[in-house]
């Protein structure tokens, strides 16, 4: 059946096409020439060789059969990856077209090539391979990257919708199709009720994750996003459970005489399977979290533990005929929180990337299979069946959406509007799941399997391409309520405050609510679970280590700056002024928000932007960090040798001056500022070497700083020890997180003052500590001092 590639092909894709053609062509040629069927055993090969009298030793020969399966699989995966690269090179395409469109297109292409070259495709996909190897990574990845807080906030609605939606859809489609089959004109008389029901269940397996990227681009509101995500997550599990139950029914010999008892048993089984799966998942999640507690010295196996236990949960659940999908999802969700805290940074990254990789591979293979099946001779086209299937899928989905949300809206404080519901309806994009289930129908029980496969393929293509591509414009057209992702510290603060306020008021009213369930769980978690599952003596949270690193980075920057001549630093004032009106840079804000999110009383994760096919790239800040860390040790070494650092000296040495944050206490500020500013500058001139010194003192710093991020704009020292004026016309240099809003020189009191080292070990030097970055030794002449601090600080990446 002809199929048009609608994905615009960039030059890269043409390149890929050529590569693909060549390789497939090459492989099929080889295949034909060796004149053998797809696989040969090693033995056969040797046997054949031994039968023929070898006359000469061939210097160069090819043995394609030996490697055919892995070779072709690898080629397919590579092809899909190259296509993805091409896809993402286009600036706007990823936001408009779901990535599954691309994968399906690639699959169809490969299918066309294989069909065209008459090559027998290796049977990579059969039931056990699919359920045991291809499916778990996909589900694991979905569960692991699920944003937990929004999920649990909406868990009631999500369960109600995902569970019942799948059921209503399945039975609705199945029954309607059954009715259609009764009509003799369509020639579908031999499709029984059970078969229709089974078909209904598999064709209702939606995979809306594909559209999530598009929705995220359009920035739809969080509950809506979560609803779709939750459905994606649970729908697979529910469909597979339903599918298995119905297959079991089909296998019963007396299936014409199914009693109501059997139906009840089926329902009970449904519940048991679901709940049992989740239970096992949670148990395995806890076990693996517990084990990662002890892997400190052998962090290389941490990813292994994570993956093996998740997979084990899946297998154990499958052994007991429970839902492996729900088990692995529950395992991932449970495990994630504790594992993230226990494992090393690198293991964490490895886990994330590996998970994405595995799921990518699985999905690609499934889509390729789909493509291969599309272009082939094993179709049975029945107009009535296909059209009705398509129609009923849409109709029943609409019915289930509107009916279920009507009910659940009664219980929600903020109901989903009709627009939201339309979007949910329209996001019912089918995917790899339904195709696999159709493909794996046992032919013996389903003589008309090909028809089912054809119909499923039509539904998939239709929904992925038509709905997938048009959902973006639809969202924009409907003007669905958007998130207000305001990137600001204020917002974070206020929202946190609000959460606590709500909790407090609810406590006072004695109301029981979602919020409190979560609260209770958190308390339980803190009191018991974390003690058991999280490593002891954990170094201060990753946030603090982040700060340390960033501080060091700052120091390095300043060191570098020190190399430059001071002339270069007479940055024109106007430029600074302009800079000041900038708001805090996004990175600064982000880092501040990171602190807030991680350390506020209740950790709340915003809905991460979930992209099934990619992970968020690291910010350049982190890259700088890496460089920094590498350099810090060398710097430290050099400095130690060169100078006797004041850091170690007892209190009483006024060495380093930190420019403190403007809002220091008046009395302190007054006292010190004057003293420090005027004298300090000159004093410590000789004592401290230039900025690099800061590095060695990092540890002290850190104590003082204590991982503060976001330092506040400070006022620079006036030249010649003049008292600082406020109004921050000077640059509000802070650490690299220079706050643009320096204008807000808030208090008229002497803001700037330097903190002496003698001040109690940093306790007190809050201001100094907070300023973090601007600790440049006042030894430098003030002007140089500031300028120096100016430039590196202003020079943000």
């Amino acid at each position, binding site marked *: 059946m002809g199929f048009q590639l609608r994905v615009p092909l960039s030059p890269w894709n043409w390149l890929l096409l050529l590569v693909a053609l060549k390789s497939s062509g090459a492989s099929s040629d080889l295949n034909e020439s060796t004149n053998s069927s797809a696989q040969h055993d090693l033995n056969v090969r040797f046997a054949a060789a031994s039968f023929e009298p070898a006359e000469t030793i061939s210097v160069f020969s090819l043995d394609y059969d030996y490697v055919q399966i892995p070779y072709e699989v690898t080629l397919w995966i590579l092809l899909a990856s190259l296509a993805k690269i091409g896809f993402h090179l286009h600036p706007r395409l990823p936001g408009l077209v779901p990535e599954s469109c691309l994968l399906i297109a690639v699959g169809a292409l490969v299918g066309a090539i294989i069909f065209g070259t008459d090559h027998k495709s290796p049977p990579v996909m059969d039931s056990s391979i699919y359920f045991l190897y291809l499916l778990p990574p996909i589900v694991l990845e979905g569960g692991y990257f699920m944003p937990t807080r929004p999920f649990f906030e909406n868990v009631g609605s999500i369960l109600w919708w995902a569970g019942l939606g799948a059921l209503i859809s399945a039975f609705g489609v199945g029954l309607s199709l059954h009715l259609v089959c009764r009509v003799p004109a369509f020639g579908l008389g031999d499709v029984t009720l059970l078969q229709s029901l089974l078909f209904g269940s598999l064709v209702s397996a939606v995979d809306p994750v594909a559209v999530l990227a598009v929705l995220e681009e359009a920035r739809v509101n969080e509950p809506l996003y979560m609803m779709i995500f939750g459905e994606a997550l649970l729908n697979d599990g529910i469909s597979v459970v339903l599918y298995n139950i119905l297959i079991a029914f089909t296998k019963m010999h007396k299936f014409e005489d199914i009693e109501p008892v059997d139906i009840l048993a089926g329902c009970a089984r449904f519940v048991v399977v679901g709940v049992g799966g989740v239970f096992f998942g949670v148990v395995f999640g806890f076990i693996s979290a517990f084990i990662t507690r002890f892997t400190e010295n052998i962090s290389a196996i941490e990813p292994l533990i994570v993956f093996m236990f998740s997979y084990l949960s899946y297998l154990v659940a499958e052994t007991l005929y429970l839902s492996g999908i729900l088990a692995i999802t529950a395992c991932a969700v449970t495990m994630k929180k504790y594992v993230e805290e226990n494992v090393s940074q690198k293991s964490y990254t490895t886990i994330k990337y590996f998970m994405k990789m595995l799921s990518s591979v699985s999905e690609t293979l499934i889509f390729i299979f789909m493509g291969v099946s599309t272009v082939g001779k094993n179709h049975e086209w029945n107009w009535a069946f296909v059209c009705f299937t398509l129609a009923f899928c849409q109709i029943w989905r609409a019915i289930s959406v509107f009916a279920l949300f009507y009910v659940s809206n009664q219980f929600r404080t903020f109901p989903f509007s009709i627009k939201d519901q339309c979007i949910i309806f329209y996001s019912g994009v089918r995917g790899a799941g339904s195709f696999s289930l159709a493909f794996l129908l046992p032919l013996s029980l389903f003589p008309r399997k090909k028809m089912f496969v054809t119909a499923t393929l039509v539904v998939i293509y239709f929904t992925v391409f038509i709905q997938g591509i048009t959902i973006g414009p639809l969202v924009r057209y409907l003007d669905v309520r958007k998130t207000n992702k305001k990137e600001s510290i204020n917002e974070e603060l206020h929202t946190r405050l*609000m959460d*606590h*306020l709500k909790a407090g008021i609810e406590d006072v*009213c004695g109301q029981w609510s979602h919020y409190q369930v979560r609260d209770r769980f958190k308390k339980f978690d803190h009191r018991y679970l974390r003690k058991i599952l999280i490593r002891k003596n954990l170094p201060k949270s990753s946030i603090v280590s982040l700060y340390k690193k960033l501080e060091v980075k700052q120091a390095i920057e300043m060191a570098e700056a020190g190399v430059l001549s001071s002339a270069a630093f007479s940055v024109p004032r106007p430029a600074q002024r302009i800079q000041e009106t900038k708001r805090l840079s996004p990175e600064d804000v982000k880092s501040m928000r990171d602190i807030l999110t991680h*350390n506020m009383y209740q950790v709340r994760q915003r809905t991460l932007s979930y992209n099934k096919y990619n992970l968020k790239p690291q910010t350049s800040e982190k890259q700088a960090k890496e460089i920094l860390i590498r350099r810090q040790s060398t710097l430290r070494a050099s400095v130690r040798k060169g100078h006797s650092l004041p850091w170690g000296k007892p209190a009483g040495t006024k060495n380093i001056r930190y420019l403190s944050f403007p809002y220091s206490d008046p009395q302190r500020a007054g006292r010190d500022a004057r003293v420090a500013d005027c004298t300090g500058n000159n004093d410590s001139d000789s004592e401290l070497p230039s900025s690099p010194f800061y590095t060695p003192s990092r540890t002290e710093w850190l104590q003082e700083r204590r991982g503060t991020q976001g330092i506040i704009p400070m006022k620079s020292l006036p030249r010649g020890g003049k008292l600082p004026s406020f109004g921050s016309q000077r640059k509000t240099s802070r650490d690299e997180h220079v706050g643009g*809003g320096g*204008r807000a*020189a808030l208090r008229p009191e002497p803001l700037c003052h330097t903190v002496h080292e003698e001040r109690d070990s940093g306790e007190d030097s809050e201001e100094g500590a907070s300023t973090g970055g601007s600790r440049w030794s006042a030894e430098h002449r003030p002007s140089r001092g500031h300028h120096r601090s100016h430039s590196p600080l202003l020079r943000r990446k």
Partner: protein
Amino acid sequence: MGASHSASEEVRELVGKTGFSSDQIEQLHRRFKQLSGDQPTIRKENFNNVPDLELNPIRSKIVRAFFDNRNLRKGSSGLADEINFEDFLTIMSYFRPIDIAMDEEQVQLCRKEKLRFLFHMYDSDSDGRITLEEYRNVVEELLSGNPHIEKESARSIADGAMMEAASVCVGQMEPDQVYEGITFDDFLKIWQGIDIETKMHVRFLNMETIALCH
């Protein structure tokens, strides 16, 4: 609530004043009696009966908000010593969910009231401005749950937030201009894009709630 005539009159009056339904008022009255130990008024000490509140980092602010004269609409500053049921309801009414049926103007009004409540929580000295110190205080309290974060971090965050607020509210500042604090109008500006009405509400259920009696 008994079947006495005057009681239901009161209830109706309260329904009119605060906007709660009579069921909700009954629920809250029961709770009020629980908290106050059957006294007609509640004092600050009575809030100690709510054990879960102990763990709340902004506990003191919440309790204080109940007695704040500005919230009770009895004055522009200061704290009341005790509050009666009507005052209790007044405070609770700040947390009613915004009714979808309300028109735009009413929604705006509600929003403003809620934001004002929040503003009063920050502005502890009732001078109409949230100063840096007050802001810092709030942030410290919020972060107090985590032992790893020290005061300095809290301060810097507060400072940064203030900075941001200043740039939002005042924009370009003259070199010598001083930003003294966030006024209520500035506060409104900051919250402009954010749907507070969706966040600041408590579901007062009509049905029998599972009252958490401790």
